[in-house]
């Protein structure tokens, strides 16, 4: 043994003398020591080891072969890994196709050149990324779209041969085009002309084999303009054909148009762009690149044939000028603003050589209003053809009058709102138009006869009523199904514009006459103002409006006929309820209760067989059962308001520039005053018996009635059950659990029936995330997992909501808190396990959740820097993250943390 060791240390200078002088050596030490020698580059064999350490021979035989085997396997693996990129780690066989080489990659996926096994046909196979094929409803949709694309047969549309799914990878096989995508072509022309281009790397969708481009005439020559026009004719004809087959492309841009070696244009990816992609805008950074090809109406979620024409127009524009139509804008906001304002410089202002007719055609195709574009892409193709044939084109540059109208549509207010809220674009545009005509009519009215004046006023009233209908209701004081089902939501930005429109509205209210009809209209409109203020969380302003309406009512009661009054009584009861709600939020629960009681007695005098009366009565009970949760009262907003004298004239001067501070301040949740969760300990999560009785009465009312319940009634019923289910996890009872099940079922049903109604979706997300995280320690593992599942579902629902309404802070805020709750649940679970690894994983997941909260909250905080509540929450989340990370790294969770290792 001594000899052996001596010989080892002399033969192997690499091994450390102290290690070998320690004695007796354990097999563990020997293994470590030998590994160190190997690492230093020494070859060690088992035989040699056994010879050197005969005492350990058996043990060496016990481990050495396994070690060597592992080493050889893992070293092969390591070598292969060091060269590999995972993204290419595809099965080389996908369906009947053998993938051979990558020829392009982009947002939608990766494109490979491939060969059909039996047919020996070379094809392009596009493998879609998981994000492109969205989660669960992706497959069906993908298949539907691919099927419709595969039906298209046109000389300028890349034929789709096959499509399918394998191992979770969605692929489409299509004809391989030897050529280049137009974005490449444009990039090359840009470099050739030594023009300083914008981003060189926008290429997304290359189906081409590189370096096999066709000859393109030199930029700026007549031949070049004809080339552009001819490419435009081909593309427009293809798009027109597809439209005739009810297929919309949705994502026409230079990267999707390929030019083959013969100069033929091919359109790729028909129908593949997922609408839901829009929901991810806010999450990707390379947006500006994609956004610039979107039509204004696409921001609003509308996408139709005219949008494709716009995309094509923008592509031709870029080909003509080698510049993006949106100019040198680089940020998302800039691009959006440019598109919204339709601030597209004429091609000739970029390059005066561009033929005027071509400019006129392209500018018509990229008109902001779909109605100003060509009636269809066929007409666009025809006009381009006319240019090619030297005939005069049909498109006309807009005249002075037309430009003025366009200008008026592009209200500066619109521009201001739009850079922050693309989604609300059309709504805002609509309001701005109404506002504009209203002002004009008001001015005209002064010169008109009384009769003309009143008819003008009524007309204006009607148009305003119509425009505001979508928004004037409040989620809670729903008076019609429309409010529940409305697909529009109020964002701080739209609120700002609406505030402006209401200013105009108010003039009518103040000018309204004293006839019973006028007074009835005034009452309804005052309620509308109040509801609107309520939705902005400005309960004080709402109270003022409701009280004004009630004063009007008092006068009316004294003057009007019984018949005229009857129709209004329900509205008045609703106003009582609204006042009750406002006072609750203003911190006066007793006064609030009195208003609800008043509403109740008013309603009880009405015809209880009427569904509307029963609904309002049920709502009265529901509202009366509510208690404020910590943080729900926006008291701080009052002090903010005090600094700003109410603007009774109502009219706000249209401003340009950034978003205006003002009315929407109140709309932001977490509005500075949600108390610390720890302080909320005194808040009783369980229902008092009185509350429960109220809810049960509401439920009884809603469940009676022969006719099928209205949507709003079903929605209210679900909310009543949700109220009864409070504390179902932390303090479970038969009652809370049953109510919980009812609430779950009813809300999910409603959501399934009306997936586009944000009010319903938002409530569902809230219900699923409803849990008091302070009591998690008391819950068992199974309950924790159930809560975890619900939170995960809630996140999915919220995300769905945010896809359609990315700019509603409340929705994002719900999601933020769901992630934060999820972190708490995971942390609780991590404390329960005695397995350190599992505990670590759970903690890691918790960190991930908190970080997701931070990420989303940061977005909110950035967008609404005035909302100090957002900043406070951000700090809190960051603190949570630090806590969790400390726990993760040092395992020192207070109290009952996981054991530190097993030894």
């Amino acid at each position, binding site marked *: 043994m001594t000899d052996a060791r001596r010989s080892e240390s002399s033969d192997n200078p690499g091994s450390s003398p102290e290690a070998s002088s320690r004695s007796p050596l354990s097999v563990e030490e020997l*293994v470590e020591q030998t590994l160190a020698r190997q690492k230093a580059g020494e070859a060690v064999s088992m035989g040699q080891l056994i010879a050197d350490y005969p005492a350990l021979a058996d043990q060496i035989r016990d481990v050495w072969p396994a070690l060597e085997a592992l080493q050889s396997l893992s070293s092969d693996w390591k070598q292969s890994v060091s060269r590999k990129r995972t993204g290419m780690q595809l099965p080389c066989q996908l369906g009947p196709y053998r993938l051979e080489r990558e020829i392009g990659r982009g947002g939608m996926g990766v494109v490979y050149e491939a060969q059909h096994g039996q047919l020996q046909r070379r094809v392009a196979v596009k493998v879609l990324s998981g994000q492109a094929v969205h989660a669960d409803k992706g497959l069906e949709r993908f298949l539907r779209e691919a099927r419709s694309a595969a039906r298209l047969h046109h000389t300028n549309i890349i034929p789709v041969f096959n499509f399918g799914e394998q191992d979770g990878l969605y692929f489409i096989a299509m004809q391989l085009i030897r050529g280049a995508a137009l974005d490449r072509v444009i990039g090359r022309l840009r470099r050739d002309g030594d023009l300083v281009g914008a981003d060189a790397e926008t290429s997304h969708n290359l189906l081409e084999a590189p370096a096999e481009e066709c000859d393109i005439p030199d930029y700026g020559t007549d031949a070049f303009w004809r080339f552009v026009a001819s490419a435009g004719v081909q593309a427009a004809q293809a798009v027109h054909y597809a439209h005739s087959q009810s297929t919309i492309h949705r994502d026409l841009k230079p990267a999707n148009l390929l030019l083959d070696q013969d100069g033929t244009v091919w359109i790729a990816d028909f129908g593949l762009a997922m609408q839901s992609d829009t929901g991810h805008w806010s999450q990707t950074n390379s947006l500006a690149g994609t956004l610039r090809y979107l039509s204004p109406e696409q921001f609003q979620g509308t996408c139709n044939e005219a949008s494709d024409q716009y995309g094509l127009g923008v592509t031709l524009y870029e080909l003509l000028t080698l510049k993006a139509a949106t100019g040198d804008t680089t940020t998302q906001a800039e691009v959006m603003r440019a598109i919204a304002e339709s601030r597209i410089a004429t091609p000739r202002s970029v390059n005066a050589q561009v033929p005027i007719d071509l400019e006129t055609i392209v500018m018509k195709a990229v008109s902001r209003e779909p109605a100003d574009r060509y009636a269809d892409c066929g007409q666009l193709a025809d006009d381009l053809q006319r240019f090619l044939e030297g005939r005069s084109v049909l498109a006309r540059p807009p005249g002075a009058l037309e430009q003025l109208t366009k200008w008026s549509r592009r209200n500066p207010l619109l521009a201001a709102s739009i850079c922050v809220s693309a989604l609300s674009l059309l709504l805002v545009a609509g309001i701005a138009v109404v506002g504009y005509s209203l002002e004009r009519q008001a001015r005209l009215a002064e010169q008109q006869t009384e009769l003309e004046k009143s008819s003008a006023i009524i007309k204006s009233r009607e148009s305003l009523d119509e425009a505001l209908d979508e928004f004037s209701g409040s989620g809670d004081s729903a008076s019609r199904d429309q409010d529940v089902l409305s697909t529009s939501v109020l964002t701080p930005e739209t609120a700002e514009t609406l505030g402006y429109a209401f200013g105009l509205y108010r003039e009518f209210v103040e000018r309204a006459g004293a006839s019973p009809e006028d007074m009835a209209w005034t009452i309804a409109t005052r309620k509308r103002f109040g509801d609107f203020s309520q939705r902005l969380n400005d309960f004080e302003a709402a109270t003022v409006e409701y009280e004004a309406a009630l004063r009007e009512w008092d006068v009316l009661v004294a003057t009007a006929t019984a018949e005229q009054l009857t129709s209004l009584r329900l509205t008045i009861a609703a106003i009582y309820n609204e006042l009750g709600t406002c006072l609750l939020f203003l911190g006066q629960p007793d006064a609030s209760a009195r208003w609800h009681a008043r509403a109740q007695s008013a309603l009880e005098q009405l015809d209880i067989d009427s569904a509307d009366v029963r609904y309002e009565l049920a709502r009265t009970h529901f509202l009366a059962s509510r208690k404020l949760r910590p943080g729900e009262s926006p008291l701080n907003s009052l002090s903010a308001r005090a600094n700003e004298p109410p603007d009774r004239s109502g009219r706000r001067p249209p401003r340009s520039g950034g978003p205006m501070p003002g009315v929407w301040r109140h709309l932001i949740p977490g509005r500075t005053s949600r108390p610390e969760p720890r302080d909320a300990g005194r808040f009783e999560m369980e229902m008092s018996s009185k509350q429960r009785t109220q809810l049960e009465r509401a439920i009884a009312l809603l469940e009676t009635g022969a006719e099928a319940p209205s949507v709003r009634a079903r929605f209210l019923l679900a909310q009543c059950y949700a109220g009864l289910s409070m504390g179902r996890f932390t303090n479970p009872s038969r009652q809370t659990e049953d109510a919980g099940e009812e609430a779950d079922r009813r809300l999910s049903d409603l959501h399934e029936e009306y997936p586009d109604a944000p009010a319903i979706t938002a409530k569902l997300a809230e219900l699923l995330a409803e849990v008091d995280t302070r009591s998690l320690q008391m819950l068992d593992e199974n309950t924790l997992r159930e809560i975890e599942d619900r939170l995960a579902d809630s996140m999915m629902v919220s995300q769905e909501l945010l896809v359609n309404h990315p700019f509603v802070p409340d929705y994002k805020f719900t999601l933020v808190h769901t992630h934060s709750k999820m972190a708490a649940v995971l942390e609780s679970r991590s404390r329960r396990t005695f397995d350190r690894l599992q505990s670590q994983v759970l903690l890691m997941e918790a960190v991930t959740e908190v970080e997701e909260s931070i990420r989303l909250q940061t977005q909110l905080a950035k967008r609404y820097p005035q909302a100090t509540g957002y900043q406070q929450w951000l700090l809190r989340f960051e603190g949570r993250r630090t806590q969790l990370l400390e726990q993760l790294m040092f*395992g020192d969770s207070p109290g009952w943390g996981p054991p530190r290792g097993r030894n």
Partner: protein
Amino acid sequence: MLEDGISAELIARLRAGEEAALGELLAVCEARLRQMLFFRLDPRVASRVDVDDLLQEVFLDAQKRLSHFAATPEGSSAYVWLRLVAMQTLCDVHRRHLGTKARDAGRDQSLNLVSGNSTATSMAHALAGNLTSPSQAIQRAEAVDAVQRALQEMEEIDREVLALRNFEDLSNQEVAEVLGINQGAASLRYVRALKRLQQIMAKLPDSDKAW
């Protein structure tokens, strides 16, 4: 400390929060980090995610959390810290691509999440990935299968030790730090796991060829 290629000077700069130092750390550790990412990346996600992108994401995450390294006890390995960051990045990526089901996936079979099946699967994948010819594949398929079963039978921490040492190239000291056990124990577990593997291999028919 120099054993892992990370100099004391680099550690000091990292503790001081110097971002440039982070870049250097990543350069030193890149090979091991890549290996780790390859090893731990869910095969369902591997086809959609590029490891180079992943490395970049790890870097950004590490940048955000650089201050946390300063909070680790004196003598902590910078690589172990970076690896922890990378594990979190990986969790995020899995979540992004597999949804919350990423966490649920392992739930049905066992309570173990990263460990349990996924380490065994990762190892089996790594082993199976080396098969070059179809005949070899058939020959080895059984062995790989047996190894996977063996790995699943092992105590989770032992399996983890094997993975950390042989597939992630962690030193014994680093393994100890990752698992929160002392070095002696880490070494003990390693050798025990090797023995167990050896026993299973010995039982395999034609074992020398298979390996």
